């Protein structure tokens, strides 16, 4: 299994600003994913982050709003840009394994005021 850390664990941000969330994995992984989970709701996939290529975004999510970087096989960032209160959510990164399992980070709890 992979051990995943995220920074920050939580933040309170003002409307119109941006926040970059970091995801660090303790081993090299090919597949890395970013999810959003609103309070009491299930997880929604934002994008798949592939090393060496642009991220693949799900319907309803765009690169200008959620730019993603994947500079190497152990690290990725997700930026939430021009935030509004509707962006208040938990953001999680995960990695895929060769045995088709996913391992998740602890999440970043974002509150936009």
């Amino acid at each position, binding site marked *: 299994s992979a051990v995943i850390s995220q920074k920050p664990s939580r933040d309170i941000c003002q409307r119109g600003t941006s926040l970059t969330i970091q995801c660090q994995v303790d081993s090299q992984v090919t597949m890395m994913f970013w999810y959003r989970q609103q309070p009491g709701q299930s997880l*929604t996939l934002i994008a798949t982050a592939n090393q060496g290529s642009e991220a693949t975004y799900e319907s309803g999510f765009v690169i200008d709003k959620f730019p993603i970087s994947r500079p190497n096989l152990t690290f990725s960032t997700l930026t939430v840009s021009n935030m509004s209160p509707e962006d208040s959510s938990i953001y999680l990164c995960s990695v*895929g394994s060769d045995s088709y399992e996913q391992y998740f980070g602890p*999440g970043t709890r974002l509150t936009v005021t």
Partner: protein
Amino acid sequence: LAKTTQPISMDSYEGQEVNITCSHNNIATNDYITWYQQFPSQGPRFIIQGYKTKVTNEVASLFIPADRKSSTLSLPRVSLSDTAVYYCLVGVSWNNDMRFGAGTRLTVKP
């Protein structure tokens, strides 16, 4: 994408066996069935995965009938600490065509 349907919530008591069934009528030939557990303020945690018949690990058992259109997660002798949301996913993770459904909120009572 194979869609999954699970009960929204279930209640149980400590020491009982809990079975959570997931329906996935349009499962594809290559799809695996994976279950995750999520506690409040934590990311989901992998519980068990299977393709057909029965799979057992130290935490749970997964029963998959021959037609694979459903699956049942079995938690033996639950405790209060098993109170969580349980998600059933169908797909192939490395293509990440798996999508989280609504999940089942299990509440274990003393």
